[in-house]
Every structure is written in C-alpha cells, then in structure tokens.
C-alpha cells in the first residue's frame, strides 16, 4: 500500500484530468462558435447574373 501519491499516480491523475477538461473545453469552444447562416444578398449572387 502506497502511503501517498507516487509519481505514477500523479501522472495518471493529471493526464486523466487534462484529457477530460481539454475535451470539455474543446466541445464548449465548438458549441459557442455556432455556424452562421450564410445569407447571400440576391443582388450580389453571381448565379443570378447567369440566369437569362
């Protein structure tokens, strides 16, 4: 029985926390950066110029 955290214990604890906090931060950042609707002004839409 180890009386206190060994270097191995610290490594596992830190890596697990970093992985999970990192994953949560990544998801949060992506969620906050919602895709903006691409609204194209009909007057500037190049496809409209091609129509007869």
């Amino acid at each position, binding site marked *: *029985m*180890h*009386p*206190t*955290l*060994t270097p*191995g*214990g*610290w*490594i*596992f*604890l830190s*890596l*697990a*926390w970093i*992985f*999970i*906090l990192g*994953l*949560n931060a*990544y*998801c*949060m950042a*992506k*969620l906050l950066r*919602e*895709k903006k609707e691409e609204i194209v002004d009909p007057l500037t839409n190049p496809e409209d110029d091609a129509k007869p």
Partner: protein
Amino acid sequence: MAQQREQWGSKIGVILAVAGSAIGLGNFLRFPVKAASFGGGAFLIPYFVAFLLLGIPLAWMEWTLGRYGGRYSHGSAPGILNAVVRKPWAKYLGSLGIIGPLLINFYYIYIESWLLGFAWYALTGDLMEAVSANAVGPFFENYILLKTTLLHGTVPAALAFFLATFFLNLLVVYGGIRRGIERISVLVMPIILVLGLILLARVLTLPNITQGLAFMWNPDFSALAKPRVWLEASGQIFFTLSIGIGAVLTYASYVKRKQDVALSSLSANAANEFAEVILGGTIVVPMAVVVFGAANIETIAKMGTFGLGFQTMPMIFGKMPLPQFFQFIWFALLFFAGVTSSISLLQPPIAFFEDELGMKRRSSILVTGAVLLAMGLLAVYGLGAGAVDEMDFWGGTVALVVFGTVEAILFSWVFGIERGWKELNEGSQIRIPRFFKFVLQWVTPTYLVIILVTWFITDFRSVILLEGVDRAAQVPFLGMMVNKVHFITGLRLVLVGLLLAINAVIFFAWRKRKLDDKLLHPLD
C-alpha cells in the same frame, strides 16, 4: 404524410438532457469502486480505450439512428430500426430498446426515492442521530425494508418517498420534450455541477488527501494483464454513457432534421466523463480512505455501491464540520442526477405509444405509468427477495449489451457504413477523423460481439440455471416467506411475459397502420 413531432428548443437543451441521462449514481459510486478494485490509475487505460473505441462511436451511432428515425416520425427503437432496416423483423429487435429502459426504471425510481428520503432525513437531523449512535447501517436497512414509518406509523417512509418520486417523474415527462424534459435538464444540470464542485472543494481541502488519492490513482500495472479488468472497464463505459438503453436513440429523434449530432454527442459524453472521473473519482473513495484509513477500505468497498453511498458517506460527513449540510448536499446531488436519468428512461415507451399507436401523450403516460407502478411496487416489496438485483441484471446489464450490439451491427452492416458515415456527418460542427469510420465499421461491432460471446460462454448457463442460489433459501415477500428459486423463476416469467407483450403491441401497431393506410389510399 409524417405528422409534426415535438423538437428540442435548443442544442444546449438536448446536450444537457443526454448528459443528464448519462450522469447518475454510477458516476459517483460505481466508477470509483471499480477503479479502486481493478488497478487504480491503471484502470484508466482500458477505461479510456473503451471510451474511444466503444463509448464515443456507439453514442454517435445512436444519435445518428435516432435523428434518422425522427425524420420519419419514429421516436422509439422499434420504429427507428424499422425505418433504418426496412425489413419486417427489424421492429421486433427494437423491443429490446423498450424493455431495457422499462426494466431499469422498475427499480431505479425506487432507489432514486431513497435519495430523496435520505436528503429529507439529513435535513431533519434523523440521519445524523443514527450516525452519532453508530447505527446508520440499521437505519438504512429499516428504511429500505419498509420498517421506518411516517405520519404516526401509518405509512412506510420508503413507500411514501417512492410514490412522491414516481409522480414527480411522470409530471416532468407530462410536460413533454421541450417544456418538461428540456426545462428540468437545463435547471438541474447546473445544480448537479455546483453541488459536485462544493463536495470536490471539501475533499481537496481535507488533510492528508493525497493518501486518499493514492488509493484511487496509484497505478497497479499488473491489473492490465487480466482480461476481467478490460471487461469491467468496457462494462463501466457502457453503463455510464447510457448507451444501448434506447434513451439516447429516443432523445435524438427529437433533434431537428439537419442539426449537428456529432458534436452534441461528444459534448454530452465529455460532460459525463467530467462527472465520473473528476467528481466521482475524487469524492467517494479518497474521502473514505482519509476518514477511515486505508486498512478499512476493503471492508467498506465490500459493502457495495449502496453501502458506500447510503452508509459510509453519511458517516464520513458526520465526522466533519457542518455534517447535516454536507449529508444533504450529497443526497441532493445524487437525487438530481437520478431524476435526469429516470426521465430519460421513461421517454422511450411513451414515444412508442405516441408515435406507433397514435396515442395522446396523456394516455401514453397513463399506460407507461400503470406498468411502471405495478412493477415498481414489486421492486419495493420484493427487494428483500432479490427482485431489484434480478431486474438490474437483465435490464442494466444484459439488455444494454445485447441491444448495443444489435445497433452497432445494423448501423455498420445493414444500414451501411457509407450511408451511416454520411448521415453522421450531416450538419456536423466538427470534422470527425476518418479513423473513426474504420472504428464504427469494424472495431465497435467486434468489441461488442466479443463482450457478448465471452459473457455467454462464462456466465449464461450459471445465470439461467440459478447456480449458486441455495435451493432451500427462504426470502421475505409481501409479509410471507417464499422460496428464493421460485420467486426468481416467477419474476423471470413475468419479465418474459412483458417482453412478449411488447412484441405483440408492436405487431398490432404495424397491422393497424397497414389497415389505416389501406383506408386512406384504397387504390394503392
């Protein structure tokens, strides 16, 4: 013509609802016991491997299949699998996605109600009195075996709290997806986070906490050579992410047609892992080690999940300043986590009655509630006879893995990986690495088949034949003593009957639809 179905009000709403479904008692009690028993920090290696190769992919599959089914107005497993496979047999496989959540809720709401009861007793001080008298064990046993009463001895306390919890659950789902489930999830999930962080702060400021963390996190690499450790880690991932139950499938069916599912699923899983590894992995076992000493931890771990949650934790808080406050926070945290899980398990059968039989929400809830109440009372009165263990085994273990395997095979091999991959990526806000396409097609289904086959080979026979159960053992049920083998066999027959009844309803639902279609389009 598909009828208009309810939809989630916001993306964050559905993420919190799915995260709420996943975050439950298992995060705070089951995970730390498993990790401490199977290698400490080293357990995290198979655990995260299973998270990447089993958990994340299967959750993506469920979200994708659910959104696809919702497009055709199907919100439960029979309808969704029928829409995906388009073969008559597929809908019957979906009965597993109805019986699974029902089976779990038969006992889960009862256990959830214990948390409400204990939160109440923490506030009144009765729990602290039991802790001071060193009698928290008998206090817990008297409560769950209906010996503790309320209202001058007229009503068993456990029954009263069970009924209160049961009707609270029905009330939430009665509000519907947006006004009931989404609203309660958006309200409760931040509360769970705050309560969890309060407890985390308390644990991390305990003297000698590194000793407690050592017990939980110091790696024992020899554990990695044992297949059981890998199996336990995979089982934990299955259990914790609420996959293979049918709840995620149903929740995803209410997602908008082209709304992202890849990021939403990943976000819900990430939130669940926060609650499990960071909160669950830090609070219970390290605290128990600090307060009782590492020498006693094995005895405590042997008390099982309920012993740890309902007896050890109140005793631990009883040795600290503000004991009643922290006891209340602990039980309130678990109760809220339980409610968000049980409402997610209520929704699949309700969606089935609404979508496939055209029933109104109120009628769907009445039918589901009636079945749930009858079987829930069986769990209440049959706890001492082993009813809860039996329901947990078939619902919380077998049905999950079997249905998860069915979903994985249908997604990758029947629906087709190309279609599945395209469907998953539609509207996605993240770019999923192509490596996961291979994982979805080969690794996840194979992984699941191995788990299932291993279980069949090692345990199936002994479970079916009730090996290890004393043939002469007598157990209490409804005030009588009955033979345990007879009781379990009878209960199993009831569960098989329920599964057959669900399949019969599926048969009649599709037959009715065919007749309705003929009446509407007689010349087709």
